[in-house]
C-alpha cells in the first residue's frame, strides 16, 4: 500500500489489522515485515507542504526524500544541521525520525530530536492527529514529536513533519588529526570538544586512530582556526574533494559491509577504547565513531550477526532483535504504547 495523502494513509491504517510503516528501506531492519503484518509505504506520501525560510521552518510529507529536501533548503542557504544519514541512498524524512538517526553535523547544534517541531501522524485507531507546532518555539502540550524520534514505527505512522532549519555556514574545512591509539583518541576527542573552536563535526575512525573535525563559518574566520588546530595536534587538512568524499562515506555508511548488519550503540567518549576492543573481537567487523564519541556504529559481513553489546543500541540493518544491549522496561512504556495503539496495530517495542 502506498497512500498519497495523510487522509489516505489514515484510511489504509484503519483497513489493516497489523501495520508496519516503511520508507525507502535504507535502514532495512526497521522495514523488516513480520508474518501477518502489512507494510504501508510512504513512497507516494512526499513533497514539501510549506517552507518558510524567514521562519527557519519547513513542513514536509514523511516520505519526502532527504536529498530533495536538502536541495530546496540549499537554494535558500539553509540546511538540516544534523546531516541526516543515507540521503544519497534515498532515505526519507520520516524514516530518519523513526530510526532516530543523526549524522556528523549533530555535534554542533544537536540531532534529529533537537530539530523536530511538530508532526501529523496516524495513531493505532487510524486517527490523523497533530502534535507539537509549526513555529521554532512551542511549549503547549506534551512534546510528542520528540517521542516519535527513534520510535521505529511502534506508536504510529508519521504522515507529515515540521522541522527547524538553520543557515548553512558559508564555508567548511575538514581536518584529519592523528592519535597514537584509542586512549589517545579519547584525549583528542575531549580536547577538541572542550575547546574554543565550536566544531561542526567531531568523528573518529576505528581501523586507525584518527579523529576527523569539521569547522563551519565565514571563510575569513576558518584560516586561523585551522592553523591553530594543526599547530596543536598532529594531522593535516583534507583537500576539498577528499573532505567531500569523507563526509559522503560517513553519512552514507559507505564504510559498512554491503548487505551486512549495521548497528548503532550509545557511548560516552570515555567508552571509546572499550568499543574499539569490542569491535576488534568480532571477525570482519568494521566500525565508525560519531558525535564526539557518543555513538558507535558497527557493521558485520553478510550473514554474520552483531555480538552481544554491552551498550544499549539499535540494529539498523541485518537480522536480529531491533534493540541491542541492556534494555530498560517500565510499566509506563506499555501504558503509553496502549494509549497510542490500543489494538496493537503497530509492532511492539520489543518485537
Amino acid at each position: 500500500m502506498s497512500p498519497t495523502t495523510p487522509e489516505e494513509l489514515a484510511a489504509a491504517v484503519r483497513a489493516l489489522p497489523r501495520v508496519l510503516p516503511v520508507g525507502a528501506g535504507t535502514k532495512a531492519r526497521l522495514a523488516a515485515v513480520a508474518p501477518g503484518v502489512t507494510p504501508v509505504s510512504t513512497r507516494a506520501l512526499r513533497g514539501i507542504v510549506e517552507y518558510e525560510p524567514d521562519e527557519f521552518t519547513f513542513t514536509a510529507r514523511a516520505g519526502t526524500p532527504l536529498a530533495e529536501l536538502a536541495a530546496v533548503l540549499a537554494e535558500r542557504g539553509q540546511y538540516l544541521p544534523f546531516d541526516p544519514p543515507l540521503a544519497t541512498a534515498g532515505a526519507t524524512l520520516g524514516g530518519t525520525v523513526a530510526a532516530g538517526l543523526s549524522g556528523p553535523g549533530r555535534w554542533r547544534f544537536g540531532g534529529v530530536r533537537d530539530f523536530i517541531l511538530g508532526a501529523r501522524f496516524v495513531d493505532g485507531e487510524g486517527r490523523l492527529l497533530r502534535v507539537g507546532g509549526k513555529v521554532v518555539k512551542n511549549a503547549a502540550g506534551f512534546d510528542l514529536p520528540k517521542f516519535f524520534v527513534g520510535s521505529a514505527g511502534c506508536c504510529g505512522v508519521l504522515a507529515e513533519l515540521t522541522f527547524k532549519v538553520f543557515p548553512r555556514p558559508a564555508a567548511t574545512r575538514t581536518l584529519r588529526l592523528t592519535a597514537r591509539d584509542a586512549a589517545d583518541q579519547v584525549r583528542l576527542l575531549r580536547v577538541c570538544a572542550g575547546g574554543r573552536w565550536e566544531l561542526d563535526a567531531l568523528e573518529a575512525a576505528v581501523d586507525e586512530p584518527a579523529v576527523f573535525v569539521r569547522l563551519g563559518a565565514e571563510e575569513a574566520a576558518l584560516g586561523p582556526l585551522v592553523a591553530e588546530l594543526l599547530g596543536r595536534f598532529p594531522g593535516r587538512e583534507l583537500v576539498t574533494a577528499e573532505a567531500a568524499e569523507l563526509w559522503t562515506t560517513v553519512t552514507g555508511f559507505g564504510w559498512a559491509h554491503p548487505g551486512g548488519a549495521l548497528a548503532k550503540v550509545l557511548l560516552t567518549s570515555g567508552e571509546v577504547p572499550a568499543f574499539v576492543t569490542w569491535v576488534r573481537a568480532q571477525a570482519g567487523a568494521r566500525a565508525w565513531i560519531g558525535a564526539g564519541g557518543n555513538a558507535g556504529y558497527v557493521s558485520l559481513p553478510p550473514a554474520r550477526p552483531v555480538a552481544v553489546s554491552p551498550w544499549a543500541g539499535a540494529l539498523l540493518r541485518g537480522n536480529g532483535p531491533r534493540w541491542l544491549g541492556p534494555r530498560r522496561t517500565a510499566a509506563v512504556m506499555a501504558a503509553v504504547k496502549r494509549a497510542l495503539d490500543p489494538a496493537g496495530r503497530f509492532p511492539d517495542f520489543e518485537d
Partner: protein
Amino acid sequence: MSGSPDPARIRAELAALLGPSSLLADEAPLAAYESDGLTAFAARPAAVIAPRTADEVIATVRWCHRHGVPFVARGSGTSLSGGALPVSGGIVITLNRLNRILRLDPAERIAVVEPGVVNLAVTQAAQPHGLHYAPDPSSQPVCTIGGNVAFNAGGAHCLKYGMTSNHVLGLKAVLATGEVVEFGGASREQVGPDWMGLFVGNEGLFGIALEVTLQLLPRAECFHTVLAGYATLEQAGDAVAAVIASGLLPGAIEIMEQLALQAATAAVHAEYPPGCEAVLIVELEGPREVVAADRLRLDAILAASRPVEVRPARDGAERLAIWKGRKSAFSAVGRLSPDFIVQDGVVPRRRLGEALRRIQAWSREAGLRCANVFHAGDGNLHPLILYDGREPDGLRRAEELAGRILRMCVEMGGSITGEHGVGVEKRDYLPIMFPPEELDLLRRVRAAFDPAGIANPGKMFPAGAAPALTHTGLHPLERAGVIARE
C-alpha cells in the same frame, strides 16, 4: 478531590512516614506556598513536604498514590503560568532541599543534579572548567532544574541553543503511579523512543524528576553584544528580519519596547538611546575569529536599518549591563503597576510587527498599559499586561486582553506558550491549539503516566473547578514584606 482524607490526617500520616522535620506544618511557612510566580491565583495545601532525599520523595508520591491525594511538586515557585499552584486539600512537595550536584564530569561535559539545584548554580559549578549550562531563563538565579525540566524552560538563547529539553541527556523520575523510571543516560545520542523528550515539559503531570543529567557546553570564547535603538517598533522588527535573512545565527535577538525601557531605566539605571520606541539587542558569540567576521556583517545590516543609535558593548561590563536591563525588565515593570500578568505566546517571526501593533491597539481599547519585552529571534512575545487588582474588573479586563493576544498567536500559526507552559493560566486556551481528538490524545498520554490524575491536577487541561482568584496580585510573602520583585 472529594475522597481525600482531611488535612489533619494527611499531616499526621506524612509526619509518621517521613519524620516531622520533613513536614512544614506552621501556618506562616505554608502561606509561602499558596502561590507561585503567577500571583493572581492562590490555594491552601493540606500539607507541605520538604523531603531531604529522593527516597523520601518516592515514599511521599507512593503514599499519595495509595490514598488518592493530589500532589504538586515545586522548586522555587517562579512559574509564570501557575504551574506550582497548590491543589486545595492536596500536598505540595517542595524540592529545594534536594539541591546537590551529584556529579560534575568536565571530561564528558555533563552534570548530574538533583531537582532542587538552582539553574545558575550548574553554570557556576561548571565555570572553572570553561563550561556552562546553556538554558538561561530570566529567573536563573533562583529557578530550579526540576522546574526547568517540568516546564521545558527557555531563555534568551533558544534560537541557537534550544530549550531545556535540548540539554537534558537523562533523568530518573518517580511517576505518579509510584513507579521509578530512568530515561536516557550520559550519552548525547539515543536509541528507541525519546522518553526523556516526552517527559521534559510534562508540567508536573507525569511525576517528579529526581536526578537529571545535563549536557554542558564550552563557554563561548567571545561575545559581541549590540544594542540598537529605533524610532519605531516596526523598524526594530524589520532589523530582526534583515538579520535573520542574512544567514547569521546570533546567540540572542531581543526587543524591549518603550514601557519596558522606562521600567528598566528606573529599576537598574539602564541607559537607552533617547527617543526610541524600541530597542533591539543582538548578541553574536563564538570563537573570536568567527565573531569578528560575523560582526562586520551585523554592523552593515544594523547600519542600513535606520537606527537612532547603535551601541556595541565595548567590554564585558557593558555587555552585562545590557543583559541586566533586559533580564530585570519583568520585575522592573512590576514597579510600574500594582499587578501584572505576563503572556508568552509565539507568532511567526515575520508577523511580529503586525502582532505588536494589534497588541498596542487592544491595550488602548482596554484602557490597560502593556509592556512588551520579547525573544524576537524566535517570535516569542512577552507582553506584560499591567492592571490594578483593586479595581473591580481590573483582573478581568487584563485576562480578556491576554485571551485576545493568545487567540491571535494561534490564528497566526503560532503557539499560546513558547516557554512558560500552559499551567493553570492558559489551560482554557489549549483547545484553541488542539481540537478535541488531539486534546484527547494528550489526555490519554497523561493517563498512561498518571491514571489516577493526582500529579499536578488542574494544570494544562481545560475544565475542572476554577481555582480561587485573588484580586490582589501580591505574593503572600510580598504581602508579608519578606520578598520583593527586584
